[in-house]
């Protein structure tokens, strides 16, 4: 597992899936590049324009509450967000992050210890976040779901479990 380094995008409590990925797009916008451009459209229009690979979203409690729409997790993955750190996550959003292979880290001190725009790093293996305010540790993912995350998400994980090889999947995709 790698170390993720990126700039902080800081938000508050109860950020819901409608402001992350508006409902009106859920059946009409499906291209990964286009999905990345919609991320946070109704909350922070600058986000999609300025986000850089590895950037980290930090927020307060109940991040991703609301709908089951997993585009709200995938749009960040497609925008190459490195991780989402929150005081707590809605359960559907947490699941969707695991299934998308996007690190969703629970940290009780979030977001107060972070400053917007500062560069922080996340060591997934050691479970440590380093920021200007210091070093903080977060609980590791439950073992039962860690495998899904390590495989890059639920779909590659399921392929592997069923005996399909995942390199083959990449080729198949390339051929599409």
């Amino acid at each position, binding site marked *: 597992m790698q170390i993720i380094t990126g700039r902080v995008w800081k938000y508050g409590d*109860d950020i*819901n899936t*409608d*402001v992350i990925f*508006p*409902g*009106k797009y*859920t*059946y*009409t916008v*499906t291209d990964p590049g286009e999905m990345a451009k919609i991320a946070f*459209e*109704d*909350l922070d229009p600058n986000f999609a324009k300025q986000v850089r690979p590895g950037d980290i979203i930090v927020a307060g*409690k*109940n991040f991703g*509450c*609301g*709908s*089951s*729409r*997993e585009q709200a*997790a995938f749009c960040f993955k497609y925008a190459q967000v490195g991780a989402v750190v929150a005081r*707590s996550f*809605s*359960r*559907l959003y947490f*699941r*969707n992050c695991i*299934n*998308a292979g996007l690190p969703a880290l629970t940290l009780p001190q979030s977001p107060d210890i972070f400053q917007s725009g500062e560069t922080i790093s996340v060591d997934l293996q050691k479970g440590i976040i380093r920021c200007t305010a210091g070093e903080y540790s977060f609980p590791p993912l*439950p073992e*039962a*779901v860690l495998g*899904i995350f390590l495989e890059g*998400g*639920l*779909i590659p994980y*399921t*392929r592997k*479990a*069923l005996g*399909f090889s995942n390199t083959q*999947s990449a080729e*198949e*995709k390339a051929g599409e």
Partner: protein
Amino acid sequence: MGQTFAEKVLGRLAGKRVTPGEIVQISPDYAMSHDNTAAIVKTWRQIGVKRVKHADRHVVILDHCVPAANEKFAQNHKEIREFVKEQGIRHFYDISRGICHQVLSEEGFALPGKLIVGSDSHTTTYGAFGAFSTGIGRSEMAAIMATGQIWLRTPETIKIEAKGKAPVGISAKDIILHIIGAIGADGALYKSVWFCGEAIDAMTIDSRMVLTNMAVEMGAKNGYMEPDDKTLAYLEGRARAEFEPVRSDPDAEIEQHLQYDISDLPPQIACPHAVDNVCSVEKVAGKKIDQVFFGSCTNARLEDFAIVAKVLDGKKIHPSTRLIVIPASSQVLEQALQSGYIDILVRAGATLVNSGCGPCMGNHEGVLAPQEVTLSTSNRNFKGRFGCKDAEIYLCSPLTAAVSALTGEITDFRSFTL
């Protein structure tokens, strides 16, 4: 130590005794998906299997944008119709049948003791029948199509007891808004919420569904009531399969026991832009409204129509207000027609739309313009939910909605002579 409802249902499928926090890999009894089935199928095809593992456990319903609003939605529906045919999925309901959660209930899939998952957050609704039901993501549904299985964490249980007798006109919607306002949008995060108490016992099935529907708005994994005679009467002649009611043991571990006395509860409303931003209607009375939406899987059932029709009978809605009416299902529509409710509503100036989700998630049939204000009987008032981030959405009961449609402003029904 006894076991909770959640431990029993998940334990039955895991084939062992489970405790809160334990993650189990299990096979749901039913799996529901709606217009998002097309996207799920695309993901499922990436997995590589050719046949859906348990075709008979999947229920597919077209409701989120029906009839199709444009070519993209039409294409989406077409792909779903082709898929259910190809895979022999019998439990398929096309555009005329109604909102997924209402249809699953009417069609007898929502049964005591069953585990039902759905790629929709309001799948919690079926807990009104004593099922363990919860929302999942699209990839997870695709994985279920491939393997028949899903991982679930066994939740802790919170018991929410509604005490007392509701004042006249105070409905399940007022009660659940009040509870969500008190407990907060994350007050029951990851938990199994057990609704009980004399106010719940007194409720109709239609009303109980309002509570379980909105359990997810307090973060719950599932919400449920223990089945009683009313549940069994509803299921009579409707149940699709054998079932066995599951109840918590008296000595099971309940993490929290919350009590709410509703004897003096005034009408409640959730103000923009959060479901837990709740106050009494009185506090925001007088606010001008452009539209009233009477619909959604929360509050568009027959008993809601009876209430709204009673208010609108022989009257006209306010000239500066629109009233969009969407019955929760074709069955509700039929019964509302037979009862004369639809006549009353249409004569009062309502715009009647086919059963489905309509504007509830911003797709069509009544989306808002910037600065417009809507009063809605649905379950979410997040920014942009009705298709426009600069519009305001207030959530309330059908009675409050109906009275306000007449006055053109948010109105406390207690100050209004019917």
